[in-house]
């Protein structure tokens, strides 16, 4: 265990743990969009900036850094709110709003940090450019679900989070983990009685219908994926969790 300070308060933690995780657990409020406990910190959104002062060779050095991927180290001084930090946060929120003006989470952040205008022309219509490239859908699909149906394509502003080559997905199992995880709700899901569509990936899959209650409970492909992982077969999943 090591000791360091956050906004003056002394805290203890395991060496190397994420500053963001520790700060949040300790009750400090650091905004973030691309951080998720289930995956490795990616450091894309830049909202979780903090100031870290480290003393080495008798000299104090302060730098602005993302807290999601910064390791807890003995004796560092972390500051979560300052003029410099907030100036950066406000502009980042403004830039993201220009990209995804309808995103509720961004609007909430704008309210909280006093971003009352967007001085950049908003790119595109409803369906385009809502994504803020946080990478959570990609990471969760690859590292948690293990399907790896999504990835990035391109770079810079043309970067997108998509199925390979931006084509309709052929691997997605419609488990909707990405729908849940997306911080700006740009991955929409539609369900008819027996079909689930993950709209953004243009993937429509049939749902397995429960033999007991008759309601669809999970996409067949998702069940097949789980079955394979745990060494069972699809026929072991005939009844929905509620009826079991």
């Amino acid at each position, binding site marked *: 265990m090591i000791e360091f300070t956050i906004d003056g308060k002394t805290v203890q933690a395991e060496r190397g743990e994420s500053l963001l995780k520790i700060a949040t657990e300790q009750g400090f409020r650091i905004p973030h969009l691309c951080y998720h406990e289930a995956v490795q910190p*990616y*450091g*894309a*959104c*830049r*909202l979780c*900036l903090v100031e870290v002062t480290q003393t080495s060779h008798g000299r104090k050095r302060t730098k*602005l*850094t*993302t807290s999601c*991927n*910064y*390791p807890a180290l003995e004796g560092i001084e972390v500051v979560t709110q300052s003029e*410099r930090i907030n*100036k*950066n946060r406000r*502009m*980042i929120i403004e*830039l*993201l709003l*220009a*990209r995804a003006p309808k995103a509720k989470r961004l609007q909430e952040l704008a309210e909280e940090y006093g971003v009352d205008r967007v*001085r*950049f*022309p908003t790119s595109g219509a409803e369906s385009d450019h809502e994504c*803020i*490239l946080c*990478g959570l859908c990609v990471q969760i699909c690859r590292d948690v679900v293990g399907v790896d149906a999504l990835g*990035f394509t*391109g*770079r*810079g*502003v*043309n*970067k997108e989070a998509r199925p390979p080559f931006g084509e309709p997905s052929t691997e997605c199992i419609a488990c909707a983990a990405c729908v849940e995880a997306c911080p700006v709700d740009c991955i929409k899901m539609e369900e008819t009685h027996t079909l689930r569509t993950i709209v953004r990936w243009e993937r429509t899959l049939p749902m397995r219908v429960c033999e007991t209650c008759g309601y669809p409970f999970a996409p067949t492909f998702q069940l097949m994926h789980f079955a394979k992982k745990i060494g069972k077969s699809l026929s072991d999943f005939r009844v929905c969790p509620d009826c079991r």
Partner: protein
Amino acid sequence: MQPIRSVKQLESYRETLRKGRDPDRKIISVCTGTGCKAYKCDDLASALQAEVKSQGLSDKVEVVPTGCHGFCERGALMVTYPDDIFYQKVKPDRAAEIVEKTFKGGEILEDLLYVDPVTGKKIAKESDIPFYKNQQQELLAAGRRIRPDSLDDYLAIGGYAALAKVLGEMKPAEVIDQVTKSGLRGRGGGGFPAGVKWKTCAEAPGDIRYVICNADEGDPGAYMDRSLLEGNPHSVLEGMLIGAYAIGSTQGYVYVRNEYPLAVSNLNAALAGAREAGLLGTDILGSGMDFDVQIVRGGGAFVCGESTALMASIEGFVGEPRAKHIHTVEQGLYDKPSNLNNVETWANVPLIINKGVEWYTAIGTGDVSTNPWGGSKGTKIFSLVGKVNNTGLVEVPMGVTLRQIIYDIGGGVRDGKKFKGVQTGGPSGGCLPESFLDRPVDFDELTKAGSMMGSGGMIVLDEDTCMVDFARYFLNFLRDESCGKCTSCREGLERMYQITNDICEGRATPEMLPLLDELAEVVRDASLCALGQTAANPVLSTLRYYRDEYEAHIFRRECPAKSCKAMIRFSINERCNGCNLCLRNCPYGAITGEKKKGDTYKIDQTKCTQCRICFESCKFDAVSIDTGVMR
């Protein structure tokens, strides 16, 4: 060739080589670097070889095709050694005449000589030409006397003597100590003391360590590394071997950008030669050291010059940088301690070992005896390009001024135009105006002025360069090359580009300037890697020193350089004599007029696209460009 198994064997082989080379034999050194390819240098070299043979001079004259000589403005070029006769702008069809008149007859062909633009006099000797005379070529000179793919040539001029000394007489810690004391700092732009980096890497826990050569050279306008790899790949390899010994590495990588095919093939040939001679592989020179090098080619991404992106690329992933809270010297390639240095940095290492710390620290600025950051030692190679007379590679001691480089060596601004500024440090650097010409060039002085030395790209700008367009150019470059991970870099650069674009196209409003400043600050503060962190520099430096141009564009819709299309208008003036050339060349049919009647020529503004073809075609200065006219 038999593998060389000891230091002693190396020296005796070198003696044999030297003895076998006739000291009276003349060499024709022909530059066959990338820059001269467009001037048919390969044809020239083969033609000369054929002529030497057919004229019976094979035992007296040898044609040596070399890498880049650096005086690219004068290609195709050749130098004879030891006579030192320099012929420039040579066409392949002159080969027969050259061999006959100059080599058989001892006559100099006057029309192929360099003419000094200042004195108007012809200069026959390479060492008298101001471009070369005013340089101190510790690194570049050797490349003019050797075939890049010939290990024998490199050995004959003293190559691998530094490696022999290191393996035969020095302990790894001693090598690191010497490199540290020399004050060698990273030539890729970062300026980090090499010895300090080597020490940290050597001491990092773990059994496997990597040495990496960064040959991505992404700064547009910089080609020093290309020339070193094309002209003298063994010197870089020797540096890496010495570094690998000092750090304790058995595997090296050279990451070369995709756009340098000749550098890759010459390096490949050098590696093959070194392996054959046992200078790469196992038990090198009987020292027990194992080492080999793999070449990895880039895929066309500037961001891969960033160390973590480069390493990701070697591992088979895209070049997306990662946070460096844990440095790559401790956890780098495949999470192992990795020492990454630039091509030119590696090439300096054999020099330091051969000539010693005292000699090296006598060159350059400052004092590194107690603080490795205390000065800038050794020489630096610059690529002097743009609106300058003598475009080419310039190697000078650290501390030489901008004026000396641009005027004494570069010959000043070309076409008699007025100097406007010099850009250094590539997309991470800035632009400095005339008042800074007497600044010494090193790691620290230019940074104080708001620019930086960077990797050595030096771009000269004149009165026809629009500084807002220039800033926009860098923003366009950076937004295209940004990996896209960080919001601040990806979105910030895009918005900054849109603003400078609006300014150039006459749509700017006054609030755009403070907004540009605000964005610049966030892009710099909040981005993960050096691409984003330094991306705002070109804009910030042009705003600092050329603010009047920005204001002219915004408030008066004027482009002082008469470059921005939206704000200029072309017209035919009274000097027109009706030669009809502009009318013929105009691709848009925008010019009308009656031949031979100069006063009838007019440009139809509704058809004109400001493509400049008429202006560039006219030999009578009869096309005028006005600004302050919004379209």
